[in-house]
């Protein structure tokens, strides 16, 4: 991997933005939702697959060495938290979205929205899967997959779907400008 200085800085900034997203909590009647997913998806959209992937790895790495950048703290012990899977999901999500968006020659709402939804799908596959594994094999408690989905997916899915619309709406306007201005952090020539 050879990164230019500007790429390195953008990766760091998106890792920092994801951390900021964990602190912005929007109070809703049911579960408060954070903006981590939003910035994670944006990192894929704006930076492209490879760099988006690095930015999320960096974010998770910073949290794991003990900086309190996750929704509830940080530190190596976070690996044992049932919710750690979502963080792994963010890495996969950013990569997927970035890879797909990079290869779109024309940017339309439908295309970007389906890329974001696929990314979201990965967040939940990792998130709910990890939740299920941790509860059953670390905490040694019986939990059915249905119960895991009920706890880990249903309360959040509606707000995440709305966030996806928001991401797509802003992305379809910003990507063409980025590409035209040659800022092009997500053009085709990235390896």
């Amino acid at each position: 991997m050879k990164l230019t200085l500007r790429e390195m800085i953008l990766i760091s900034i998106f890792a920092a933005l994801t951390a900021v997203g964990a602190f912005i909590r929007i109070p809703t009647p049911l579960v408060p939702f954070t903006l981590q997913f939003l910035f994670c998806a944006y990192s894929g959209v704006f930076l492209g697959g490879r760099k988006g992937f690095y930015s999320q790895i960096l974010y998770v790495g910073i949290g794991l060495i003990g900086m309190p950048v996750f929704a509830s703290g940080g530190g190596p012990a976070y690996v044992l938290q049932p919710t750690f899977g979502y963080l792994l999901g963010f890495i996969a999500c950013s990569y997927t979205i970035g890879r797909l968006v990079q290869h779109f020659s024309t940017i339309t709402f439908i295309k970007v929205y389906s890329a974001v939804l696929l990314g979201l799908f990965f967040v939940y596959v990792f998130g709910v899967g990890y939740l299920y594994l941790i509860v059953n094999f670390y905490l040694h408690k019986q939990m059915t997959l249905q119960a895991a989905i009920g706890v880990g997916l249903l309360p959040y899915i509606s707000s995440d779907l709305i966030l996806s619309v928001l991401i797509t709406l802003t992305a379809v306007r910003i990507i063409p400008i980025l590409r035209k201005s040659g800022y092009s952090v997500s053009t085709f020539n990235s390896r």
Partner: protein
Amino acid sequence: MLTDIMLGQYFPGNSLLHLLDPRTKIISTILFISSIFLADTYQAYIILAAFIVFIIALAAIPPTMILRSLKPLWIIIVLTLLIHIFTTPGSIIYKIGPLAATQEGVRQGLFMTIRLVFLIVVSSLLTFTTSPIALTDGIERLLNPFKKIGLPAHELAMMMTIALRFIPTLLEETDKIMKAQMARGADFTSGNILRRARNMIPLLVPLFISAFRRADELATAMEARCYRGGHQRTRMKELQITTRDWLAYGVLGIIIGVLVAVRITLR
């Protein structure tokens, strides 16, 4: 508000723990955290607790700081305890409605909870006694051997430093933009979810513009100062392994030895 969030929990000091090489601290933390999983008897937990109290005292970190690091996780801590007490099968000691607390449950719950508390305390001790810069320096040096297989150790450490530097800045920026937009009539706290999501646009657009601008400015500033990666870079403060560090490894080795012995003899 947002800016109240304390980041980089570094607690400056001059204790033996503060003076250890960051590499020693990172390696010892990982080793010690893994050794916590060796404990499965009351005796082992007492030894662990005594040792943790000893290092907290050695680091001269006020106990209130330690408690504060546990605060954000208290829900999970209490939940772990309750789930284990009420769902483990065994001899029933207490009943509330359909829930039955069992003796085995209390034991298992206590163990799991104390283990979780130990894990959090030990890992936060690392960030309490090591400044973020020293920490990333240590990580860079630890990852150096992996350079041969293509891992960009210096770049990673640099990106970590930049990200850590920018988190407070971006938090402050977010706070400022929110207030500025609220003064113009933006509303972030009412309406249904759909409305709230749409109201985020006046926050997000300026935030991204400012983030990209800052990235550009920083890149220019670094290039103007002839930054060109880790190659042949010299440092003002070189990391050094001293007698202190070997002493720390020795003490850790003894503790792990004792834990292994306790595990084997007290089954």
